[in-house]
Every structure is written in C-alpha cells, then in structure tokens.
C-alpha cells in the first residue's frame, strides 16, 4: 500500500515568489526572515522523500466559474498547465507545466464516490496559485506528479466546515488504501484571517490576530473538535471576508487526524499571518 510520508498545511501568499527573487537592495525588510522560514519549511517535505503530491487548494475564479461551480473537485489529467495571465500580472508568478498522477487521481475519485463524497472531476484543469504557491515554496523543482483537489471556499453557498474535515479524513484513508509502493505527501493551502476587497484589507497585520492565534493553536495541536465547535460559515465572516479559506486548513487537520503537528511555524506579515505546519504520520 502507498505510504503517506508527510502532511503539509500552509498559507499561500502569492507575493512570496516575487519577494524571494528580489535583490538585497530592492527586497523589503521582512524578506530575509520570510525566506529563511520557508527554506526551513521546505526541508520538512524534502526529507520525507515523496514521489507524488496530493495538493489541496481552491480556484480563484480562474477556470471554475459561477455558471457551474463544483464544491469539491479532483483533477484527473496527465498534465496541468499552471498559473494565469492575471497572476503573472499581479504577483509575477510564472506559468508552469506540472505532471499529473492519473492513477492516484482516479483512485481517489472512485473511492471517494464509493464512500459518499460526490466529487466532481476535471480532465483539463489549469491550476492557479493556490496550487503553485506551495510548489514555489516547498517543491520549487516542480518535478513531482500531482493530484490537485479543489475546494470551494470562494463562491457561496459553500460546504459546511465539518465536510472539509470529513473530506480530509477520507482523503487520508483512501491514499493509505492505494495499492502502490509510492510515497505520497498531502499538501494543502488555506488562509488564516484574511480580507480582500474590503475595508480591512492590507493592514500591517492580518485583520484578526486573535483569530490567527486561536487557529494556529487548533492546527498545531490537532484540536479538530474545538475548531468545529467554534467555526461556522457565519462565524468566518468576522475575522475577515476571505477567511473561509481557513476551511482548507480544517481539511488538512482532518488529513492529520487530530495528530499534534511535528513542525509548526508562523510569520506575522503585512496583510496576513503566514503559517507552516507539517505532520509525519506515526511510524515515519
């Protein structure tokens, strides 16, 4: 059976790539610490020696649109073009071509359907920065095949937080049942408190530092029940109008099955708090 060798959950800050490429003269004062933290975080994945990456993210109105909006979608294509013109324009993100692992994607799809997750699928998916940011930060070689899984945290009505946790647990179980010798890492990106296009955007910190510190405690200590007791679709409006992206972290807590994180780090940046978590399933 396949082995899950690392579970990584992180924020996806689209400006990291550009910041990391700046010369010392032009880089902002926080760049050095940011790059150091990301470099340390990258090592937590590198040392697990994965063969394939299951990547959880969320399309930002690039390919998925309001005329047919899936709640959870698995990419099952052999390749993924990645990043869009407007991400190059706004964030300086280059376009990429990533390989896909169709066998694992189809296994996740079919087993998911069997156990009660009516997953949508895509044979031609251009992934966006929710998938490529963790490539740039923790696997910049972009050399491993991926299985992208998109969640809808963006276009309400959204699935309930508990479904994100349940989907995470289900993905974990399915990957562990995959008849393969491959070493799989499951990587997901979400948000802590975040405001986009609203009055609290782009402040000196994330819009709700209290929420952030609570959320980091939930994630790093595997407090799934506590998070579920406090978080609802309604409550997530309060920390910032884009904070529903926290549900992707809840999905990753489900993947980690309540385990305490083996690695946890944060960085208080303008606009948002960055956070980095890694779990090694027991026995790794």
């Amino acid at each position: 059976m396949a082995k899950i060798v690392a579970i990584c959950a992180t924020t996806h800050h689209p400006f990291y790539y550009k910041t990391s490429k700046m010369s010392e003269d032009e880089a902002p004062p926080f760049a050095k610490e940011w790059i150091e933290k990301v470099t340390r975080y990258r090592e937590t994945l590198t040392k697990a020696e994965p063969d394939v990456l299951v990547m959880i993210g969320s399309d930002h109105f690039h390919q998925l649109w309001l005329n047919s909006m899936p709640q959870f979608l698995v990419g099952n294509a052999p390749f993924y073009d990645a990043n869009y013109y407007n991400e190059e324009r706004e964030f300086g993100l280059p376009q990429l071509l990533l390989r896909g692992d169709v066998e694992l994607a189809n296994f996740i799809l079919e087993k998911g359907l069997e156990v009660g997750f009516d997953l949508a699928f895509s044979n031609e998916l251009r992934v966006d920065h929710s998938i490529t940011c963790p490539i740039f930060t923790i696997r910049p070689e972009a050399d491993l095949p991926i299985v992208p899984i998109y969640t809808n945290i963006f276009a309400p009505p959204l699935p309930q937080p508990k479904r994100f946790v349940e989907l995470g647990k289900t993905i974990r179980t399915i990957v562990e049942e995959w008849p393969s010798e491959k070493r799989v890492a499951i990587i997901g990106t979400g948000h802590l408190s975040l405001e986009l296009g609203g009055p609290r955007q782009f402040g000196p910190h994330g819009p709700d530092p209290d929420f952030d510190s609570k959320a980091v405690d939930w994630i790093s200590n595997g407090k799934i029940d506590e998070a579920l007791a406090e978080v609802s679709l309604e409550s997530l409006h309060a920390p910032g109008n884009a904070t529903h992206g926290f549900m992707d972290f809840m999905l990753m807590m489900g993947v980690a099955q309540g385990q305490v994180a083996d690695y946890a780090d944060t960085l208080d940046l303008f606009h948002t708090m960055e956070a980095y978590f890694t779990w090694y399933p027991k026995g790794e």
Partner: protein
Amino acid sequence: MSKYYVNKFLFTIDRDPALVERYRDDPKGTVAWWLEEEGPRNLGVAGFERTTWLSLEEDEREALEKHDKVALFAMGAHPFLTLTLWIAMFERDFTEPLGMQLDYAAALADFQLPYPDITT
C-alpha cells in the same frame, strides 16, 4: 438585482488584457459593448448559444460605468473580482507600494459587519 451578471462583467474583463485597458480608458463604452456582445455569451457552450434573459439593473450598470467600487461592494459584487480588476487598472496610478489597495480600503471604511451578502 443581478449580482451574477455584475460578477460576470468583472470576471470576463479581468481575464482579458485588452479588455482591462479598454474598461480603464472607456468604462461607459465598454459596458455598452459588453452588454451587447460579451455578456450574453454563456461561457462553456458554443458562442452562438446566447443567453437570452440576463440583464443589469440600472444602478448596477451605473456602478460599472462609473468605476464605483464602493457601490459594487454595497451591491454584493464579489470583492475578490472587483479588487483584482482594480489592481490591474489603477495600481499604476499610485507611487507608494500598496497605495491603491490602502486607498481602496479607506473608501470602504464605513462598511460594518455584516458586509453585503455576496451569495449568488
């Protein structure tokens, strides 16, 4: 109210570099063109299969024609779509880093929670 159609305008303009410039330079003309040509195109089906019933309310059309981001926010237009397009069109007019984004936030300062509903 047709939040969906407002969002569709923002979405289809933002993803086309030529339309971003056209909307920046001539908002009124771009909205008129869009309502005739682009708006009725149902993305994902053949171009000649036009949507026949979508339209903008007068206040929605006016908000788009006037680049009125505050009115768009008040109507529940998706804030990510508006912000992204505004960065593309107007970030260049500010000299300080994040100048446009902070000016944008200040323009919305009177909004309290709960913000206008963006559900479509």
